[in-house]
């Protein structure tokens, strides 16, 4: 049954003639399949936990206490020091967790007008996030000076420090602790730590920086690269693919050639050329790698989107919708994109894994300036005997990429109707 605006799957009917339950959208089918695959769920959980750890990094390790009571006055220094970006990330994560609730709230209203509840909920959350971000960035300056809290810990009546009470960036007083193995292996470095101490669970690096803290903050870079870079690729690919598939003709011819061109240049070379070419004053180096990864990785998504559009162009419901005068844009958003989303999602997860890999190579070549796992690996590999340096970063990279690959495979299997569980 269709009124030109809904694509609800027809209510299925059991052999006895009664309705077989609420109609299921394609998305819910895929999600249901995914839930039944333990490997996919494990990797999803890992990624979520990683994101959480990255966001909460200042609470896990750092020199700023969470709560500080001195001379009868209580304060919460850490909240003064969190940057606006960190707050926005926290809010985004929270909103992501609340998404199912919002969907449920929005569903009745959405289904009445035939809109997708998921997209509506997303739109609401995005708006909230934008407002929060605007307020924060417009009105707040985080505190950046050093508070000497660690040195003055005795002066406070109460001091709740993060789990690892150690400066995030080492100074001279931290130098003596350089290149220590994980402190619970105290028998390896008896002069610094007694065995079983948890002062530095993953050891320290070349200048006395705590490795665990570095891994946590490196996770931010890895996730950034993963989400933002691939997000950019997705956006470009979906847009161009939709245009290509919808208009066809010479537009498609030209865009297809462009994609071929980008595909035929080795991606690494293109990235390197662009990195060395973008000067610092245009884009801060932190974002250069992300941007360049994003701009060079859209071709896969493009082709998928384009193929999907070509496929459904011939479908009857599309012809009908168009005959009824539905606008092209609406069609794209309501029909083409949601249907093509699943294989694109698979491509995206593999793309994230690929982006993290590329960052490691770029760090090896010396083109990365922000601290990241790739840089840690590159540093650590030159001193293999300090195994905790490269084992931790190597494992972090390995586990993350493995998780994304596993997730990608899981989604791919979930989509495949022949592999229905």
């Amino acid at each position, binding site marked *: 049954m269709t009124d030109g605006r809904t694509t609800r799957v027809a209510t299925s009917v059991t052999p006895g003639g009664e309705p077989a339950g609420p109609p299921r959208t394609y998305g819910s089918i895929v999600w249901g399949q995914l839930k039944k695959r333990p490997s996919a769920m494990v990797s999803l959980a890992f990624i979520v936990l990683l994101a959480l750890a990255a966001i909460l990094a200042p609470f896990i390790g750092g020199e700023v206490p969470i709560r500080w009571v001195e001379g009868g006055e209580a304060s919460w220094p850490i909240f003064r020091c969190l940057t606006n970006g960190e707050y926005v990330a926290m809010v985004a994560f929270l909103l992501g967790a609340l998404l199912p609730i919002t969907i449920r709230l929005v569903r009745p209203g959405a289904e009445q007008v035939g809109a997708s509840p998921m997209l509506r909920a997303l739109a609401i959350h995005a708006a909230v996030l934008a407002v929060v971000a605007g307020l924060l960035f417009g009105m707040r300056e985080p505190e950046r000076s050093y508070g000497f809290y660690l040195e003055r810990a005795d002066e406070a009546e109460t001091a709740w420090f993060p789990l690892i009470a150690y400066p995030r960036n080492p100074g001279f007083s931290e130098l003596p602790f350089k290149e220590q193995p994980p402190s619970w292996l105290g028998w390896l470095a008896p002069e610094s730590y007694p065995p079983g101490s948890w002062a530095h669970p993953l050891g320290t690096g070349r200048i006395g920086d705590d490795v665990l803290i570095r891994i946590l903050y490196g996770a931010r870079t890895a996730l950034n690269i993963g989400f933002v870079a691939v997000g950019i690729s997705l956006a470009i690919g979906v847009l161009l693919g939709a245009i290509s598939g919808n208009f066809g003709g010479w537009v498609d011819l030209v865009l297809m050639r462009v994609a*071929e*061109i980008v595909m*035929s240049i080795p991606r690494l*070379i293109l990235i390197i*050329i662009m990195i060395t*070419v973008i000067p610092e004053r245009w884009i801060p180096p932190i974002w250069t790698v992300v941007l360049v990864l994003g701009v060079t990785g859209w071709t896969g998504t493009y082709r998928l989107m384009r193929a999907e559009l070509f496929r459904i162009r011939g479908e009857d419901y599309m012809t009908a919708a168009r005959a009824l005068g539905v606008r092209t844009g609406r069609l794209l958003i309501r029909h083409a994109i949601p249907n093509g989303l699943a294989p694109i999602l698979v491509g995206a997860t593999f793309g994230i894994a690929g982006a993290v890999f590329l960052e490691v*190579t770029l760090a090896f070549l010396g083109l990365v300036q922000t601290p990241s796992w*790739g840089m840690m690996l*590159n540093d650590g590999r030159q001193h293999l005997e300090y195994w905790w340096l490269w084992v931790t970063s*190597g494992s972090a990279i390995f586990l993350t990429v493995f998780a994304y690959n596993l997730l990608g495979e899981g989604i791919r299997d979930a989509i495949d109707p022949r592999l229905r569980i």
Partner: protein
Amino acid sequence: MRTYILKRLLLMVPTLVGITLLTYAIVRLAPGDPVGAMIRMQAGNVNPRVFEREADRIRQRLGLKDYNFWGADPDRIDAAEKIVNAFYGYGRWVWHMAQGDFGESMQQRTTEGSKDPLDLYVERAHVSVILNLIAEVLIFLIAVPVGLMAARYSGRLFDRGSTIVLLGLWSLPQVLAGTLLLSLLARGGIGLEGFPYAGLHGAGAETMGWGEWFVDTLWHATLPVLCLVYGGLAYLAKLGRASLLENLRADYVRTARAKGLPERRVVYHHALRNSLLPMITTMVMMLPMLLGGSVVVERIFTIPGMGNLFVGAAMQRDLAVIMFGTLVYGTLALLSLLLADILYAWADPRIRYD
């Protein structure tokens, strides 16, 4: 079929133009002065007169001079003129290239060896080709049986186990794998000390006989090839498994079984042959990727290969070498795409391109 191939070959030309033009434009229009930077970097403290002369000569040679076409200010070149200059420079590059002049490498400016990008690449080609060919063959030889077994015993221990292992291999960065191999297995490191730590040939390779040279090269190539193989292997094995599984579930296999054909014949003679096709086409497309992406291996094992040359040129904005490399890699990539499509058409009579 023939007309299709011809049409594709002809279509390659505008794509190649696009590839090379895009690369040229990015490198050329970028802010900064790569020629001056290069000379400064190589020379440090340069006599200004010599610097100017050298810089001029290189710019002339590579067509990097910016001409002022119509601007009001004769000394400044504005953005529009720069774009026109870039097109002009590109055209000049194409013209020279058609005559066999590929420009000269800025990085090799002061050394005695050849500066011609063609020579530079050819010098290293044999290294890259040896390594990558061996890698490709090995990948194929290992991936097929592994994929085959995983598909046959699908769902059982071997399949699950190999999936995890393969996925794990796929997730291991080359930087880490290479370093571990080098330190654990190469001479002068910790551990086994069985393999050489650098280069593709031992000292005195020129004086060896053929057989000895062959063995020596293989011995040197072992670790780098291992490093190149493990990633592609994982990908291809999984692909093979998926492909074979799909075939094993197909109707024609069911028919064959129903006909009473021995299982062995069904699998090896029918299903395998059909499932090999996507694997072969993937491998055909993998070769350019391997050639272009082997810079990590080349650096860790100190092997002078094409990947290192290309990446080095990209980082230094050495225009002539970049352009030549783009041309070569672009052509290889497009040719391999074409070859893959031809293979598909040849194998599957249902596919018609005309």
